[in-house]
């Protein structure tokens, strides 16, 4: 056994208020643990530096999914299973639903949380490209109250984020404005299930005229990638190049080149930089080609 339970403290204050009070009292000393699917793996391997943990599993304030006319507010403590099974998420946010579906196996989906995925900040995290594409906003909470921040730019570097030492992620907000878009997502891993992404794409696009509208110019496009940089990336340069244009072979080549230039993939135990680069280019091209196809009139 590479870990000793005797060396760790874990408490469950039971309410959000008590947890944030604790974090304010001793900032940086208590590691929040929700479902544990990341923390417990480190712990078992003897690689968890934290010795004091505070459980935020099953805090009612973090578990709700609030459906409002213009947005949906997903509690950070919601599990992937809850995301998959929620009607609005499945209907209106398929990028997030598919990320939930391909994260781990069912047992891990029953415990892993969206907030945990954000806070753990793995460059290969499955849900983060979707949050970038949907331009999610995060509600962060502390004893000082709540603040709402865009998710774009939230992760600033490898495992670094704009979260104060005494703050928790409380909810993830998504605007309900993506009907009529093509939602494209693909995860490339070592196998079909239970795989860490080698490349992960979440993209949204809409042509002028919408689906079946006969239009061909790109009206709105967002392309987000995981596993190709220390943080999940929006390919803003690619988006700029393709916006307002019709998708043709030349544009696709330009977009691929720009995508390749924007990413910083590495060689690691799972894959190579060259492979990740090539696949990124291929998937960006595939997305644009599918986007073009949506313009065809019925």
């Amino acid at each position, binding site marked *: 056994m590479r870990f000793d339970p005797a060396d760790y403290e874990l408490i469950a204050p039971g309410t959000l208020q008590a947890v944030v009070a604790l974090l304010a009292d001793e900032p940086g000393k208590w590691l929040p643990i929700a479902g544990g699917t990341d923390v417990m793996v480190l712990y078992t391997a003897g690689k968890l530096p934290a010795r004091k943990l505070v459980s935020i599993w099953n805090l009612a304030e973090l578990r709700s999914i609030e459906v409002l006319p213009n947005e949906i507010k997903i509690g950070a403590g919601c599990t992937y299973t809850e995301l998959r099974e929620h009607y609005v998420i499945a209907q209106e946010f398929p990028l997030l639903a598919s990320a939930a579906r391909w994260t781990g196996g069912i047992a891990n989906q029953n415990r892993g949380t969206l907030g945990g995925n954000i806070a753990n900040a793995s460059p290969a995290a499955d849900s983060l490209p979707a949050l970038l594409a949907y331009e999610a906003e995060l509600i962060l909470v502390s004893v000082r109250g709540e603040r709402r921040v865009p998710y774009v730019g939230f992760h600033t570097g490898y495992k670094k984020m704009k979260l104060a030492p005494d703050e928790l992620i409380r909810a993830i907000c998504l605007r309900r404005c993506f009907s009529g878009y093509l939602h494209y997502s693909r995860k490339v891993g070592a196998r*079909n299930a239970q795989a860490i992404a080698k490349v992960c794409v979440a993209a949204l696009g809409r042509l002028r005229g919408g689906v079946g509208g006969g239009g061909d110019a790109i009206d709105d496009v967002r392309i987000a990638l995981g596993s190709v940089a220390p943080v999940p990336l929006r390919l803003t340069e690619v988006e700029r190049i393709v916006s307002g244009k019709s998708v043709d072979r030349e544009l696709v080549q330009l977009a691929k080149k720009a995508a390749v230039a924007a990413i910083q993939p590495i060689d690691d135990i799972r894959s190579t930089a060259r492979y990740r680069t090539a696949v990124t280019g291929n998937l960006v091209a595939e997305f644009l080609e599918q986007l073009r196809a949506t313009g065809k009139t019925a």
Partner: protein
Amino acid sequence: MTEEGIIGKSVPRKEGRDKVTGVARYIDDMTMPGMLYGATVRSQIPRGIIKKISFDPHFDWAELVTVTAQDIPGKNCIALIGDDQPCLADGKVNHPEEPILLLAHADPHLLRKAVDAVSIEYEPLPAIFTIEDSERRSQIIWGDDNTLKTFLISKGDVDGVWAKAAYIVEGEYTTGAQEQLYIENNGAIAVFDREEGITVWGSLQCPYYVHKALMALCNLPAEKIRVVQAETGGAFGGKEDYPSIIAGHAALLAMKSGQPVKIVYDRLEDMTATTKRHPSRTRHRTAVSKDGKILGGEIDFTIDGGAYATLSSVVLSRGTIHAGGPYYWPNVRIRGKAVATNAPPHGAFRGFGAPQSLFAMERHMDHIAQVVGLSPVEIRRRNFLKPGQTTTTDQTIREEIDLGKLLDRALELSEYTAKIARFAQQNKVGPIKKGMGIAAFLHGAGFTGSGERYLASVVAVEGCADGGVRVLVSSTEFGQGTNTVLCQIAAEALGLPYHDVRIAQPDTNQVPNSGPTVASRTAMVVGSLVRSAALGIKQILIASGLLGSSYPPQEFRAACRAHIAAHGELRSFARYEAPEGVFWDDQKYRGEAYASFAWAIYVAEVAVDLSTYSATVEDFVALQEVGRVLHPVLAKGQIAGGVAQGIGFALYEKVVWQNGRMQNGQMTNYIMPTSADLPPIRVFFEEMGNVHGAYGAKGIGELPMDGPAPAIVNAIEDALGTRFDSVPLMPEDIFEAVSANGDR
């Protein structure tokens, strides 16, 4: 006699109920009063001199039991074939994770801290990690020249064929290491008593291998060592020789402490420190006639054995003998060689050398086909061994096998021809490219040549007081159905219901040595002996007048009870006897290599997605001739499971090495297929019987490992038109090859 035969029926698995209710007890489920946990301090470098071992003074070492090489009562070796592998490193290390010191304590958490509190200073020595490094001999790490073993198979006149050849086809093929990945890690519990000696319970395949190793290590006579197999959660060869090491470690700690000691590895330790499939390199140079017939050739088959010899000579033997595949070679020279590197010693894994050399042969056949301008189907058809012809070792094929017909059936079952045509059209558009691939192969069951005679296996069947019978063998169950099949055989031989037959737990105090549970020999060789011993029981009862020659089960039970009441016991032994007229020359490596061969044709349908360069097997047909199917569900399960491991070997399972150490020693990063990854694996059998096997059975446990990798890579070449000669074949490799060709 029973109304319906038991052989050929899918009777319930003997220990099945325990397994589905969670009652079956594996090593880590067992505890004993006063039990300590044991752990191993291992080398962090691949090769070097141990300068100093320091124990952190802030730790209370008085609480811990410590064992070093100096504490070994007997010989510091793991007795197997040679004695070159130390049980504990003494002064020098030759591979990463080599065991140096052992520790024990009642608290497993504290134990881990103690392991971390030992620091070792080394003087590193230059280490070698590849076959090529080893051959270069810039560092000699084993013997005089790093060569663990060689074999030479010579048939006909190879030197004369080149001049006659219309084509000379060359190729080099490589396979990587593969981790057995049994879901239950290695574990053992040892108890030492001054009077009784050592008792070890282990997750293991071969109780008598462990018994022999412990005798030498602990310097105790045979009757003071007892080895018992616990329920074993998968093995696949990974628990053939390795358990002697972990059992030896537990035994040494038990002897030192006087308390029971359990050692169970976690996944990281098991993956990084224990055996793997030998990496291989095979070079073919083949002389082929104008109409595609093999005239002769040279095959160089080399395997990487790791730091110590262990089983390499036997793996090499099997790989060398199988290197020619199911084809007729009128002339051939096969050089087999095993070399040493500074990696943890490689060991047994299902197939045992044959998957490596058969991968090369079957890839090479497709290559020959291309050069000659024939299809993969036709090139094989023209070269298949026929009854009356001889193998590469001059073994005459005496059974009426028709590989051409077997091929036809496999092609039909897989819709090969229609799919080839369809894919040729479909592949013109879109990123998905599909292909079909064939592998034809054979697998010899039982020990090679004189091996079975050398093993001299003994089996017993005894009558029980309640009138039932019990099979006594050292053959172990680890999922493949040993318990079930051997009881079926005894039941059939005696005309008893299956439920009247039980099998003893393999315990060296209770059961004779029926040889190791390896080499696909259990049903065929041991089963045959079980049948003999069972018939022996019947003979005793008939001879004593208690039983007629034909009887209903209840009469047998009554006779059995009566005999035991009168004589105290009822037991019959059977010992292996080599069949008449079978010859094998160990020096020339010529003759009857195996008592029987199973034959197979596998067909893989693969799709490669060129947007991600990932290859997926979409459909798999596994057709084999196996003598007799003793238990349909078990047989199908063996083939499907072996095919799954073969698919892993081909496409998913890559050991990432750095300086001789496995870097991806967790299940997150060493990838085996999940239920979402495998195609339908469609299993079919032909049965033509086998003179040497129980009820006509041939060994099938390892056969399915040989075919999938070459069939899949053949299919990928068919799909892409790109040549690949190595497994594992990862998407990154496909990408590099495809982009080098300028595609996409």
